[in-house]
């Protein structure tokens, strides 16, 4: 049922957020509207806008090189943390994690 699934979704997101090192999680739709987020609004909006463009670019790059290929995951490692983007047709799941070092 939708209710159950909804609960599952909640549980999944909660589980992701509770992993070690995870700073923030957010779900963004194709228009850049943050659906679910654990960070504050301004940060979320910033991430949403920028990462959306980047994911699109990455996706188009992968497809340009091989049209039968598709982007499955995008990881951006920076000095301070790692931004992981899981793209979908309509939504983007973004997680910011501090990798264990």
């Amino acid at each position, binding site marked *: 049922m939708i209710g159950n*699934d909804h609960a599952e979704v909640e549980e999944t997101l909660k589980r992701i957020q509770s*992993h070690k090192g995870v700073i923030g999680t957010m779900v963004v739709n194709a228009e850049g509207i943050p*659906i679910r987020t654990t960070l504050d609004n301004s940060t979320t909006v910033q991430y949403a806008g920028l990462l959306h463009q980047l994911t699109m670019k990455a996706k188009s790059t992968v497809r340009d090189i091989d049209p039968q290929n598709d982007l499955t995951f995008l990881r951006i490692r920076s000095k301070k943390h790692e931004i992981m983007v*899981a793209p979908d047709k309509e*939504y983007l799941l973004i997680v910011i994690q501090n990798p*264990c*070092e």
Partner: protein
Amino acid sequence: MEIVYVYVKKRSEFGKQCNFSDRQAELNIDIPPNPELAEQFVERNPVDTGIQCSTSMSEHEANTERFEMETRGVNHIEGGWPKDVNPLELEQTIRFRKKVEKDENYISAIMQLGSIMEHCIKQNNAIDIYQEYFDDEDAVEVMDEAPSAKTINVFRDPQEIKRPATHVSWHPDGNRKLAVAYSCLNFQRAPEGMSSESYIWDLENPNRPEITLKPSSPLVTLEYNPKDSHVLLAGCYNGQIACWDTRKGSLMAEMSTIEFSHRDPVYGTIWLQSKTGTECFSASTDGQVMWWDVRKLSEPTEVVVMDITKKQRLEHALGAISLEFEPTLPTKFMVGTEQGVVISCNRKGKTPAEKIVCTFSGHHGPIYALQRNPFYPKNFLTVGDWTARIWSEDSRESSIMWTKYHMAYLTDGAWSPVRPAVFFTTKMDGTLDIWDFVFKQCDPALSLKVCDEALFCLRVQDNGCFIACGSQLGTTTLLEVSNGLCTLQRNEKNTASAIFERETRREKILEARHREMRLKEKGKAEGRDDELRDEPPALNLEELVTKAEEEFFDIIFTELKRKEAEAMKKKPKPLKQPSQETDEEVQGEEEAEEERGDGEGEEGGGEESPALGGQP
């Protein structure tokens, strides 16, 4: 000469019409070619003339108009909200969000993405996939190459009677030439008709020596003047010093007088650093070290006798076989002697006694090579008997590092001028060893058999790449070592100096311990003496004698018993029960051993006591 043609015309005929008439050709003047003039010219053949046969081109420059660029950032604030939703109103946004969350697509998408995401998160937590393992070390390219050396050229003695090559010296500029001294060092065994010539070879031409030096007596050592590459200094077999100028020819420019020269072959000659560049000094097995000025070789400027009792007595002098001088320490020099002692001397000492500073002993035989480490002059290498040793000036009683005893005698050794941890040694079996003690301490890093006969001398070129070694049959071999051995490794200086310091410290600690032990023993011996003195001096002679006799007989008896036990072991044993027998054997052995031990102890004690008994 002027060519002139004169004609006469009357004044009244001026302006008159010219009537031309034909006439035969007349030879006015005939100038024959003068071949002598041709000698002022030189025929030029071929003649270079430039011609140009190409398309004519012109050069133009063009520049595009500048493309104006501007960098701007875009700030994404809230956007993308559908028209009916006002982003500022919280209620509307929340409602919108809730609506999206109910969407089927949303749910399935999130489930799927969630699982992928979790995988990556767990991955991150499990291991840092971007960890740099070898951050600190740069790629060590040189270590891949095994050390190697190859022979490039061989210079053979052109004489029929082959003489050993006793000394090699590289030309100071450019290292294109090698000066090799040939002489037979076996005492009075120089064959008849052996030539006393020595040669300067050009590296490009191994067939014929470039310059021949003709002294009156064979040369034992030969050195180029590092400041003036035309001047060579040589020490002769008969003890004289000779000086050559290669511009002047193959006869020597100067020679020292026999009366004031050495009495034995001159084994070491080195140029000194001086403003005039003409000072040098020499050492010989007659025990003297003499300083000379090559402009006036009739008399040495100074003589020092290598007498370690500091009394300058020739009878006690040690024969010098190698000489060492480092331009960076101009007041000090070192002499390696035949007796295996290195004497460190100070040039500036006022009295001859002050000249000799200290000695280092450790070799069993003559020290054939002596050289300071070019990077760490406090440490020096000595080569003699069957080992090569490295010493530190601070540690006087023993060397800080040494190689194992080889099967063949070591004849010469030298440090590499480029790498502080590398040195070369040559042996009597014709092998050249290259040691790198940063790489391996027990064995040479590379051991090459250069020739079948013994190698007598070795010289490394200033860039550390080429080595020239001279052999017993006068063959000088030129080798090139691999890159790894002649390029300074990263950190090598620090490693080498750390090794030197560590070994020096170890030796110092050992020395200190030895000193302590010796002091303790002395203390003990003195203590014993005191005890004996405490004993009643009334022990008269007879009692002492009887005591000595008793001890003597005890020792004899124990020896006899031991011999019997041994004899019993050797005798064929009667067939007793094997276990008993073996027990007895074992016991017998043990007893014999004990007795032997006791016997020895007693013997030692016995030896001591009569001596003590002898003292009042």
